[in-house]
């Protein structure tokens, strides 16, 4: 599922509802991109824990997506990230970038 401003707005409405924080987690299909984005948490701080490499929260979806594309296409590999970026399709990078940008601390 593509992440659209409409789903974003719906999700904000959800977050506002107290009951939903518990029941919503159990009911709704997991947010698109959540599982893919979790594959970044071995190395990146997604929840303000202060560990890992560059913190990704705080970047917009398009910033993250474009950085990933740039690293994926880099011909002279320098960082382990240049390799990890090769592990995802374009659609997957869009989905996980949108999810990462929706995390607390992140902003569009």
């Amino acid at each position, binding site marked *: 599922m593509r992440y659209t401003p409409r789903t974003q707005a719906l999700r904000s409405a959800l977050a506002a509802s107290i009951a939903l924080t518990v029941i919503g987690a159990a009911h709704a299909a997991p947010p698109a991109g*959540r599982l893919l984005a979790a594959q970044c948490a071995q190395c990146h701080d997604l929840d303000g824990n202060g560990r890992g490499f560059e913190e990704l929260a705080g970047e917009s979806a398009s910033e993250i997506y474009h950085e990933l594309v740039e690293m994926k296409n880099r011909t002279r590999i320098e960082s382990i990230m240049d390799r990890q970026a*090769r*592990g995802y399709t374009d659609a997957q990078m869009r989905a996980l970038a949108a999810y990462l940008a929706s995390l607390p601390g992140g902003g569009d």
Partner: protein
Amino acid sequence: MQTLNRRKFLSLTAAAAGAAALPPQSRAVGARVVVLGGGFGGASVARYLRMWNPGVAVTLVEPNATHVSCILSNLVVTGLLSMNRINLSYTALRNNRGVQVVQGRALGIDTGGNRVTVSTANGNVTLGYDHLVVAPGIDFVPPPGNWNPSLTPHAWQAGPQTTLLRNQLATLGNNDRFVMTIPKSPYRCPPGPYERACMVADYLKRKGRTGATVTVLDANPSIQAEPEAFTRAFNVTHAGRILYVPNAVVQSVDSASRSIVTSAMSVSNAKVLNIIPAHRAGAIGASLGVNAGGFVPVDPLTYAVSGVANVHVIGDACAVPASDGKAVPKSGHMANSEAKVCADAILRALNGEQPDTNIATSSACYSPITSRSASWLSANFIYGDIYDANGGIKGKGMHRVDLGEAPAGEVNQDSYQDMFTWADSLFYDSFA
């Protein structure tokens, strides 16, 4: 009980926003998941299940009071880190994530009755489950001969074995010989044994042990991971200190005299004999059925064991379908990665949904080459068609889309520092 689809649910909740309570209709709430084994795989799956749905009750069964990480353990063997540094506590999982941790060893799984028998200090207990995740890591296949790991340690499961090998290494004097074996692939952490050889050679240099050497008896025909970095390390960085012997299949071991016979070379009375035997799935996992290699075949979308309802195996114990020659490596990073896919699939199943097919897994290892430099290895997998050696499609699985090691210029001190950044982040993402 009926499950609402996402769209219906959203409109319902939008309408009900502000209402005092909503009916607790999810089948996931109150579900019981039992996890056997608190290593990288088991801890991560427990953590993510609770993070993603605090309504699910998760019980983690583990015989040890803390987990001792294999990751970074070669630095403990060679005296660069203390044991504390790789001791990972379950306190955060218990207190911050609400995982119930039971100190005990699973004895048997009643797959028909959906329950596990666990031996604890207070006797046997029985735990019922809706889903069971089995993450016991590895057991060793005893090598031929008289093998005794308390005389010739493997230090391939961290803990007392790590301390034993460290203490034995400390006795190595000038002109003494450290001999180690590497089993045929697949074994856990493909670069790990080569990393150990490098770190021991570096130790001998740092301690000024003249004439002391490391002999690497590798059952494989060639270096199994980061071939460029390790070839350079063996031939240049540690030249004269490491003797690398490929195709050395162990034929007999005598731990008492620290002697070994292999198909390529024999050594009598080594000062230290570090036997890393071949692996198989940990026994409780193996009880579910293994392939010819001794590991439990699983569905790559759910890590479910075929024919056994609601039982999943993750981490080193499982065998993931993959393209020929592009196996999914057994690593802590990968066990953590698989745990997330498994947790997501369990939560979907509890809500009556199909597993996600748009999935990816990954692995990363940082390998110290000296006490100041490290290399790294990265591997990525995407679900889809998998291929045989001739390029024909052989089914569905995790296809390796990328594999690579650090370029020569990056085998440096920055990577050595990155190793700790990565390890601490992975420790957090699995145990905190």
